[in-house]
């Protein structure tokens, strides 16, 4: 059963959040039977200047070259620097074969500043992995005033029905039941299952609400949690295969034709 982690990170760039080196990550992933890791190197909590997001993507490219086929890359940009962000996306997707775009919490994704980025991803037929969470604890929410939630993704999805949007780590700390109810009928938003939260029943309920065809296995570096919640869920083997890799393969094939 092929396992593609749709949400991972490697060390690099100016924002050190303790991500592992490529070698360490790949060794850890091998132990858990993860075949490919879709990584990004984002910057969070502040604007990321063009030279900074370029440096992040350059470090990621080195990791991709060190582990071809094992580490795949999302190009990270700050949509506030529109011209440079669009140039960076085009270069990284077309020349460096990155597989998508990563957006963090510089802007809510429903902000019009993000629209040109979305148009570019539609043109290139690649997904956007959007950092998100519905943080119900006021202290936690205050730390990320511009974090997107399922409402923002649903709003963006309705404006751009051809966009391939992934809501990052739905069970990653926020109220995942709230997110699933919002995304129930939003067909072009995929749900990334990564994150440290392993509430028993989350995968089964996610299938009930958005269906097995819109769930993507991910870890966000919570490796045992990411793999374990899919293995433990009371679902069919066919559903497990779709979540572990089948659905993401479908997304990757859109670009490769």
């Amino acid at each position, binding site marked *: 059963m092929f396992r593609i982690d749709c949400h991972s990170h490697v060390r690099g760039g100016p924002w050190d959040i303790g991500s592992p080196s490529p070698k360490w990550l790949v*060794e850890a992933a091998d132990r858990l039977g993860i075949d490919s890791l879709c990584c990004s190197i984002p910057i969070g909590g502040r604007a990321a200047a063009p030279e900074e997001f370029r440096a992040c993507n350059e470090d990621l490219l080195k990791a991709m070259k060190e582990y071809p086929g094992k580490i795949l890359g999302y190009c990270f940009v700050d949509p506030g620097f529109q011209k440079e962000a669009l140039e960076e996306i085009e270069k990284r997707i077309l020349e460096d074969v990155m597989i998508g775009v990563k957006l963090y919490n510089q802007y809510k994704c429903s902000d019009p500043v993000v629209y040109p980025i979305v148009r570019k991803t539609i043109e290139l037929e690649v997904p956007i992995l959007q950092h998100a969470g519905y943080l119900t604890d006021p202290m*936690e929410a205050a730390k990320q005033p511009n974090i997107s939630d399922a409402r923002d993704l649903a709003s963006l999805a309705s404006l751009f029905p051809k966009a391939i949007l992934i809501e990052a780590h739905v069970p990653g700390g926020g109220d995942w039941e709230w997110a699933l109810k919002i995304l129930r009928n939003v067909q072009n938003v995929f749900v990334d299952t990564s994150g440290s939260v392993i509430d028993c029943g989350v995968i089964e309920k996610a299938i009930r609400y958005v269906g097995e065809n819109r769930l993507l296995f991910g870890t966000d570096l919570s490796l045992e949690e990411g793999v374990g919640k899919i293995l433990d869920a009371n679902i069919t083997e066919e559903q497990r295969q779709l979540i572990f890799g089948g659905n993401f393969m479908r997304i990757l094939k859109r670009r490769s034709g």
Partner: protein
Amino acid sequence: MIIDINAYLGNWPFRRLPATTSDEVVKLLDRAGVDIAVVSSLNSVLYADTNEGNLELIEEVRNYSKRFIPFAVLNPKYPGWAEDLAQCVESGFKGIRLYPQYHNYLLDDEDCLKLVSEASELGLVISIPVRLRDRRGRHWMDSARDIGFHEIEALATKSPHVKIVILESRDVAKSSLVNHENLYFEISRMPSVLQEMPELIRSIGPSRLMFGSGVPLKYVTPAILKVKHLREPEEIKERILWKNASDLLGLGIQENKT
């Protein structure tokens, strides 16, 4: 053999759980290969009189005496805990769980220290969950804090002869908690292939680590993967999976049945 030191029966008021009864939780344990689970009442966490949940629990586990080890939930700030404690020992409870974050006291509160001391003298194991859910997605009525290291350290210092299992612990490897030999740590939230658990084993050895899952609040398999994929000798994995808990609880299990 696997002993889960961190399991529950009952309802959680803020979310529907896939298993609440002993029959249902046993099915989850069977699926994951867990042989014995230490359980307490989830109902007790929010009952004013926690002992009512203990009474429910002892009935619920009656038909599963080989699968469940009951722990009582007691609140040292509520009248009658000393009588409840005595009754719990008589009913067969092997330990207690404390929820200072839900019962509104600090772990080094004088009444708490007294309860911990008396329970320990009666041969009970003390366990304390750092949390029951991730605060980031909490229900608006559930404002319980995560228990801080300073609070645990205060209790460990003031009760040096009492053995205390910290459930849902994380980031302890570099903390001063490791210096308290009366503290044991449940592993369900510790990264394993990305390091915390190996680091903790190097720092304090394997004798104070215990397998736990948080079932049915949490899935069981992630915790199993954490032990399975450790690059440690089988003997160390066995200690974590069941031997340490067996020793602490005085179960007298000698050999791995498998």
